């Protein structure tokens, strides 16, 4: 009887406190959400399993080396279990970043690229999102909307323990709630991320930071290659920049950022040669 009164009061007070303090996922929780998004990214828009393009592991390692050349020189070189770079087996032209530093590029995008600097530009844009914590913010919002924030993070752990002590809620109930919340976060997140990206403002911020990192002394890729790739995107793959003036605006913003960085490196033939070698199997398939 006492518990029937105490538990709702305690839960309400904790939930209010968590809400007031803007709880957020820990690094470890982000990692598990990232893994979940990665698993969900292996299904196409019709729900058919496509998986990663893992028949050419040299290509996957090459993409990771290009990505790491940028990520490890970025403002956030470390994530919970480090950056991971994957090639998604999809004809769609896309790249995206999930929480925890899981970064993907599709085989369709790789086929459209002409050199390593374009690949670095695209990955640097995605790393920009990770640096700016867009995936994490997105996951936090999704968790909030799914109504699971009250049982997450420090508060979640303590609340779970408190509820168990009071004998009201079993571990199985907690797990069922968490599983439902986890599923809601992943479903909402994956669909919106892959189809819409993080929104125009965040995309522009990721462009700017991406360019900045490409130009750092520890990197030195040609930042203009990002523009070259974007300009070649078919209209249907331009996301929020489907009209010509909108696309022009994005290109101008990238240009302005490049100018701020001083002398830019040119695309190097040695890099282009190794890009062609690494993607040869893909182009032949």
């Amino acid at each position: 009887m006492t518990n029937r009164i105490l538990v709702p009061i305690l839960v309400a007070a904790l939930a209010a406190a968590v809400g007031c303090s803007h709880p957020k996922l820990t690094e470890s929780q982000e990692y598990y959400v990232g893994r979940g998004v990665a698993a969900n990214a292996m299904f196409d828009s019709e729900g058919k399993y496509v998986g990663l393009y893992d028949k050419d592991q040299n290509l996957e390692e090459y993409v990771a080396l290009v990505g790491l050349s940028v990520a490890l020189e970025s403002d956030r070189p470390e994530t919970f279990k480090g950056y991971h770079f994957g090639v998604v087996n999809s004809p769609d032209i896309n790249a995206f970043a999930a929480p925890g530093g899981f970064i993907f590029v599709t085989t369709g995008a790789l086929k459209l690229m002409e050199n390593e600097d374009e690949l670095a530009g695209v990955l640097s844009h995605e790393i920009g999102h990770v640096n700016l914590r867009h995936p994490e913010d997105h996951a936090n919002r999704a968790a909030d909307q799914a109504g699971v924030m009250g049982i997450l993070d420090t508060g979640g752990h303590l609340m779970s323990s408190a509820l168990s002590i009071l004998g009201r809620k079993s571990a199985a109930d907690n797990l069922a709630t968490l599983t439902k919340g986890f599923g809601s976060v992943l479903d909402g997140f994956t669909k919106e991320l892959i189809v819409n990206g993080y929104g125009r403002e965040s995309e522009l911020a990721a462009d700017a930071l991406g360019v900045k990192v490409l130009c750092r002394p520890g990197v030195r890729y040609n930042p203009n290659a990002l523009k070259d790739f974007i300009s070649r995107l078919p209209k249907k793959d331009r996301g929020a920049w489907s009209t010509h003036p909108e696309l022009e605006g994005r290109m101008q913003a990238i240009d302005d950022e490049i100018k701020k960085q001083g002398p830019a490196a040119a695309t190097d033939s040695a890099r282009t040669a190794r890009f062609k070698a690494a993607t040869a199997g893909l182009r032949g398939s």
Partner: protein
Amino acid sequence: MVLAAPFLTVLLPLLGAAGAQEEDALGPAKVNVQNASYNKVPNTTRGYIADAKIGDEVTVLAYEGSFAKVKRADGTEAYIAKSALIPSEKYVKSPANEKDMGELKGQGYEAGRFDPETEASYKKEKGPEMEKAFQNVDLWEARQAWISQRGTLSKKMDEFRKGGKLAEYSNVK
């Protein structure tokens, strides 16, 4: 009400701390990621000294860009990425760590987070196709385990930069 008041007295400050903005504070900090390294210079792939372990205690002496200059437990100084650290008082034990998970369970931890247990339950609920997708994620992470071996990664990255005329090998200075 008698029971709730002491609970709230203990819990509310902790919840506030968890949600507070992280600052670049000097002083005690802990390593908050599983793969990081201590380096002689503020860079993750240059001047490798040793792997940093999650939960390592350090003292932050200064910040240089994205890096912190720290004093390690053995008294030596090194650089580590700022994003690998968290102020000691904000460190939350990770269920992804077997050692921490044991301790958390000892404290009455029960499925309170997104963790391996929640993931396993989610996979079971979604069925074999999702199990397969997660297996693919596991294999992918295993294939990229070389990224966490920071000593060898430094050498590999240097060769890659050299071959592609990047960074110090670029003609743009």
